[in-house]
């Protein structure tokens, strides 16, 4: 189209025209495709005589009026060709410049968008930025994005002077999705109401997600330049959106993992944080969940004045459902064991069954449980086994044996009567209660650890402490299964009966009345150990005499002072230790003798009584304290 450009070469045309006029022409016209694009002089009637110069393609003609000498024909042709060439070059230059400017505009716009997009990590922020910028760059009323995570309903975000109903934008994106080769829509028949024109482009994100951007309602129409720019924007933004989607998913996954981790921590916190110690029993428990949260539980509860309770169980299934029920079961069991006046395991199991039956039935799950109590005085173990396996008993003499479950799991039958069984234990006896995560562990060859291997491992471990046995069994199973992933939770409680050894330590004020506290503690301790009454009386009297001496002689009756007392029974002996920070006792123990009663002395019997009653009496003055140690075989 030279018509737009001829003005740039008006002077050249004028020079040529003037030259022709000097050689006799009346008027000169430049005609492109039959249409005049320049003439000189401007208003003149045409003379019929003319020479017409043509360029090679015949698109441009130079009409020279008032001349008909054929000799000028070739000059006219050459001149037209030259002019055509100049104008053609000019056109190309013009187009090239326009294209350069356009490219530069686009580059700047894209650069800005990319820079801003980098700061937007969240998908929604990024999409908002994208539609706002597209709207601005394309000078339209609105823009929107539609992302189809599934095939039904896209997630739509828009930015518009007059926002449109989401359904309309959904409809627009649906039309586009049918044929993504078409970008420009301005057909009022097919477009939803409110959309006068819209251009659309696909946002290239991952394969299973369709995403597109649309810019709508531009005054006038969108040009091909607009479409190119939108496509460039879309092309550029696809990767960013994909990143943001990934980030969002990673964030969601992290949040899920954090929550699972928290759940796991809650579960771990629910497991006993410390194992209670009990004289006469070495007990240990541990659990290794297979997944992040598990369905196994165990608990060991020391109850004042009542036998120790221990329990272990396994909820059917794995993961979160099992974990939730495990938490519930464990809490109910703990509360039943701790707060109810239940002394027998079957009462606790029955209570669990009654309380949890409805919940378990609703979700068609159940739980196995092994609940036992141990009384260290008579070394009797009472237990109730609701479907729990394996339970292994290893008497100090004799072969290990598997204690089969007597009762069905909890959560199955209402009013099921559970029973308690009794085992009388002796020092050295070991009881192992575990969940099937041990014996059913598999190695890479698909072999099961099994009961035989478990018994064999325990035979080797039985000499160790309860913890040593548990740790050893964990290790044995881990060694067996190698790098095969752990399929199920592994939970274990080990009881090992030990020789009893008990001690009690306390402080009392140096007042005669308070000595009775010590007397009571001593009496309780010795009664617990089934010491003969006459021996208890002797020990009590000896301690009373010792403490009276300390009150009277060491502290001179000052009740603000304290006496430390430690009573210890190590199976065969009672050891009474006292510490006081009073006056150092000035007494020669070896020369103490019982006063002759006939002398009727009113004092001085105490130490002689102590020596007569106890096997050993020692005194030391150390670190500014009197330390008395009385020992008596019991």
């Amino acid at each position, binding site marked *: 189209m030279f018509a737009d450009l001829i003005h740039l070469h008006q002077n050249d045309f004028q020079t040529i025209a003037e030259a022709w006029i000097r050689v006799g022409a009346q008027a000169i016209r430049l005609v492109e495709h039959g249409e005049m694009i320049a003439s000189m002089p401007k208003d003149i009637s045409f003379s019929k005589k003319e020479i017409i110069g043509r360029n090679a393609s015949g698109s441009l003609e130079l009409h020279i009026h008032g001349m008909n000498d054929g000799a000028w024909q070739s000059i006219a042709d050459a001149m037209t060709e030259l002019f055509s060439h100049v104008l053609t070059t000019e056109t190309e230059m013009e187009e090239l410049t326009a294209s350069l400017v356009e490219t530069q505009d686009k580059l700047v716009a894209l650069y800005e968008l990319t820079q801003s997009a980098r700061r937007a990590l969240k998908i929604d922020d990024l999409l908002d930025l994208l539609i706002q910028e597209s709207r601005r760059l394309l000078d339209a009323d609105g823009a929107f994005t539609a992302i189809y995570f599934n095939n039904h309903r896209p997630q739509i975000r828009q930015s518009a002077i007059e926002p449109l109903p989401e359904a309309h934008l959904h409809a627009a994106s649906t039309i586009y999705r049918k044929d993504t080769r078409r970008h420009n829509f301005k057909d009022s028949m097919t477009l939803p109401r409110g959309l006068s024109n819209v251009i659309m482009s696909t946002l290239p994100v991952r394969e299973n997600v369709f995403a597109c951007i649309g810019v709508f309602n531009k005054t006038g129409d969108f040009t091909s330049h607009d479409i190119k720019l939108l496509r460039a924007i879309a092309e550029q933004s696809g990767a960013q959106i994909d990143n943001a989607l990934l980030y969002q998913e990673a964030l969601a996954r992290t949040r899920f993992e954090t929550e699972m981790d928290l759940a796991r921590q809650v579960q771990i916190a629910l497991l006993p944080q410390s194992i209670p110690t009990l004289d006469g029993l070495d007990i240990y428990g541990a659990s290794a969940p297979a997944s992040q949260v598990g369905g196994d539980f165990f608990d060991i509860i020391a109850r004042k004045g009542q036998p120790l309770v221990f329990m272990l169980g396994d909820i059917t299934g794995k993961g979160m459902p099992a974990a939730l029920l495990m938490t519930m079961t464990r809490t109910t069991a703990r509360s039943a064991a701790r707060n109810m006046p239940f002394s027998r395991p079957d009462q606790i199991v029955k209570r669990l069954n009654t309380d949890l039956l409805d919940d378990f039935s609703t979700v068609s799950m159940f739980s196995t449980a092994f609940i036992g109590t141990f009384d260290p005085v008579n070394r009797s173990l009472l237990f109730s086994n609701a479907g729990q396996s394996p339970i292994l008993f290893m008497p100090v003499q004799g072969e290990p044996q598997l204690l089969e479950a007597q009762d069905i799991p909890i959560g199955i039958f209402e009013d099921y009567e559970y029973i308690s069984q009794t085992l009388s234990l002796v020092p050295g006896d070991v009881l192992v209660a575990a969940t099937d995560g041990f014996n059913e562990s598999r190695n890479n060859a698909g072999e099961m650890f099994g009961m035989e291997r478990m018994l064999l491992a325990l035979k080797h471990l039985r000499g160790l402490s309860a913890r040593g046995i548990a740790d050893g069994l964990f290790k044995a199973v881990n060694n067996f299964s190698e790098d095969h992933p752990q399929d199920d939770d592994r939970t274990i409680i080990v009881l090992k009966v030990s020789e009893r050894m008990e001690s009690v330590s306390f402080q009392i004020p140096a007042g005669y009345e308070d000595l009775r506290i010590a007397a009571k503690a001593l009496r309780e301790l010795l009664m617990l150990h089934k010491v003969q009454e006459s021996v208890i009386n002797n020990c009590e009297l000896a301690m*009373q005499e010792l403490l009276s001496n300390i009150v009277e002689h060491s502290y001179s009756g000052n009740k603000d002072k304290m006496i430390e007392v430690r009573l210890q029974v190590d199976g065969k002996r009672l050891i009474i230790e006292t510490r006081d920070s009073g006056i150092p006792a000035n007494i020669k123990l070896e020369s103490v003798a019982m006063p002759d009663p006939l002398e009727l002395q009113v004092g001085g*019997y105490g130490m002689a009584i102590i020596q007569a009653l106890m096997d050993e009496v020692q005194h030391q003055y150390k670190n500014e304290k009197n330390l008395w140690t009385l020992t008596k075989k019991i």
Partner: protein
Amino acid sequence: MPIEIKTTEYTLKIVVIAPQGRVDAFEAPTLRKMCEAYFESGVTHFVFDLSEVTMLDSAGLAVLVSVLKRTRQNEGEVRLVWPKHEAASRILKLTKFDQVFQSIESSQIVPKGF
């Protein structure tokens, strides 16, 4: 002629003290004060009924010994009703005061005891 009769009336004051429970270093001062009050009121004969005493220590014993000592100066006497509880009788044997104190079966027969 009516015979001449000289009469002399004696009043023997006997007190029976029957502590219950522990007679230990904490209770001994109470018992001691009580006995002193009886001495002041002219009592010379003491019966300690220890049958319900559950525990006797050297402080409790010292009260008994001091009362015995003082009655001897006043030509009085002390009798014990033996404790039923071993924790109370143990110390009497240990210190051999079981051989010093005279005992009676029961405080019901007190007058016959002297």
